[in-house]
């Protein structure tokens, strides 16, 4: 069974935010009004974290993209009362929008704050409504959603591979953020496949995962040169 993982090379990442835009379009994520966004209700599946280190004038700014980490030991699926968030056999953490009761327990339990809630009926500007991605279902008010590693793309890739009677190739299944990254900072692939780029990068001495000490075993691996 493959185990899908993402490697984000922070030494390559320029912090441009292209991944965020690609993700929003790919996954039909609601465009939250500026007032709502100011109230902290902005909706991102791929977010950009900005950390300011040090004191003025020696400030260092660290930015890194943050999708859902698709933990191998996910704290969110454990607390869901209705099985609306689950881990499938390929290690992807899914959300079932039509089953979710909106208790937001999974959001509270996620140490990475990776999930977002539809506080109001999701809305888009009219131009967006003409170009929804038909592969991703629209969410409704009152449910939790999050990055799916573009699981709908995996379905297509699987169908192609099945009809050609072959295995899925490395780099064949890529989420929108990875595909769009102009700096090629986001790699994606199968951790179980010893030939994949992701497997080799994950063993790099630059590799680390966020809050490894929590034992959540995130499947998003960051690369950064140690100082």
């Amino acid at each position, binding site marked *: 069974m493959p185990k899908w993982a993402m490697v984000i090379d922070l030494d390559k990442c320029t912090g441009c935010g292209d991944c965020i835009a690609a993700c929003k379009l790919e996954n039909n994520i609601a465009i939250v009004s500026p007032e709502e966004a100011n109230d902290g209700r902005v909706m991102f599946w791929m977010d950009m974290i900005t950390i300011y280190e040090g004191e003025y004038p020696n400030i260092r700014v660290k930015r890194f993209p943050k999708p859902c980490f698709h933990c191998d030991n996910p704290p969110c699926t454990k607390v869901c009362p209705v099985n609306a968030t689950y881990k499938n056999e390929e290690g992807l953490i899914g959300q079932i929008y039509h089953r979710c009761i*909106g208790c937001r327990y999974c959001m509270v339990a996620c140490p990475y704050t990776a999930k977002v809630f539809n506080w109001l009926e999701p809305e888009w500007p009219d131009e967006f409504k003409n170009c929804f991605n038909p592969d991703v279902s629209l969410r409704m*008010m009152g449910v939790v959603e999050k990055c799916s590693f573009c699981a709908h793309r995996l379905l297509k890739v699987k169908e192609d591979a099945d009809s050609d009677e072959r295995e899925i190739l490395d780099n064949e299944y890529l989420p929108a953020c990875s595909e769009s990254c102009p700096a090629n900072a986001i790699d994606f692939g199968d951790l179980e496949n010893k030939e994949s780029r992701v497997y080799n990068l994950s063993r790099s001495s630059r590799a680390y995962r966020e809050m490894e000490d929590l034992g959540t075993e995130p499947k998003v691996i960051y690369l950064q040169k140690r100082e």
Partner: protein
Amino acid sequence: MPKKIQYENELDAPLFRPIYETGKGFYITVGILMLIILWALIMYITQIWFGLGVTGMNQTITWGFYIINFVFFIGISHAGTLISAILRLSRAEWRRPITRMAEVITAIVLAIGGLHPILDLGRPDRVLNIFTSGRLQSPLLWDVTSITAYFTASTVYLYLPMIPDIAKLRDKGGKLTWFYSFLSWGWQGTEHQKKVLNRAISILMIMVIPIAISVHTVISYIFSMTLQPGWHSTIFGPYFVVGAIFSGIAVLLILMIVSRKVFHLEDYLKKIHFQYLSTLLLIMALLWFYFTFSEFLTGIFGSEPHEMEIIHYKFTGPYALFFWGMLLLNFIIPVIILSIKRFKTITGILIASIAVVIGMWLERLNIVVPSLANPRMELPIGIYIPSLVEWSLFLGGIAVFILGFVLFSKFFPLISIWEIEEGREEGIKEVEERVHSYLPGKETGSK
């Protein structure tokens, strides 16, 4: 005009009076409460219509007033049945005028608190999913289970000791005789019936204690089962139970003082009852402080960065006022009032109890919000300011509670009449025998 029911020549006439005499005050109170409830209902409908966006919650502080009030209301419910069961079990004679009121609080507050998670749902229309696709591994399902069990047990435990009193009301006649005779289950007060009733009460009071403790333990598990700093603590179970009993006794004391005044029960609820019960409140205040102290000391001494961030936020952050207010209201004020004899008057006890109720609500706030406001990820965090909808539903919850209590007092005696009679007839003799049996010397005639 129905004929006037005679109760004035009863020994316990003051206990019948609120049922048979309805003053203007009753209608005004009920009217005001109904208006508040109607307002809360309108607010809830707007929430259903527009979504949870009408609250002050956001993506990081994703639980707010509803969860705070859920923990708070369920906490209050611990006064009742638990206290009444413990007092019955320890055969404390002074329990007699208190137990009924304590049990009523539990039943009403539990119904209100139990509905709060539904107010908090983004999709209340799907609440039945917890039965069709429920996961028993989720702490929320543990909650559903234990709250349902506690609600069932405590309503039965409220109802059973009411049967002899309901039979008394039935025998008095009047418009509602059919209602009382249905509820009294043919009670005639025979020896056999008394035996069965006493046995049923004994079984229930033993059963209800572990259930009550499980309820607040499991509510604390909702928080402590997550990895969040400030929540992931092993003492949360007992800490929540202590806090629950603490706030519960305070509410019980407030209601006792108010009903004593309103229904003129000075002869039944004497100073001694308040002093005993407030001593219990003092003990709980000290216990609560002990738990709070342990919780913070271990956090500060270990100095784990995320834990420290939250402790720092509580001590000095935007919610610091609520934190120090909590310490003042929950510990300093009640301990000063209740440990100095001069202050331990009924007014003093009332002030201490009100302080504790507010303080315990702040404690729930201090548990829920700061941990959510400081996620481990370094995200820009806003501040949580509850909206009008949330305030209205909080007020609505309190109004439903008071209305429930007022309506109960209209239909049933607030103090168990038959238990007072039993105290008069058998209690004194029994206590005397019991005290004799404690002392050295030959067993006296008791069995």
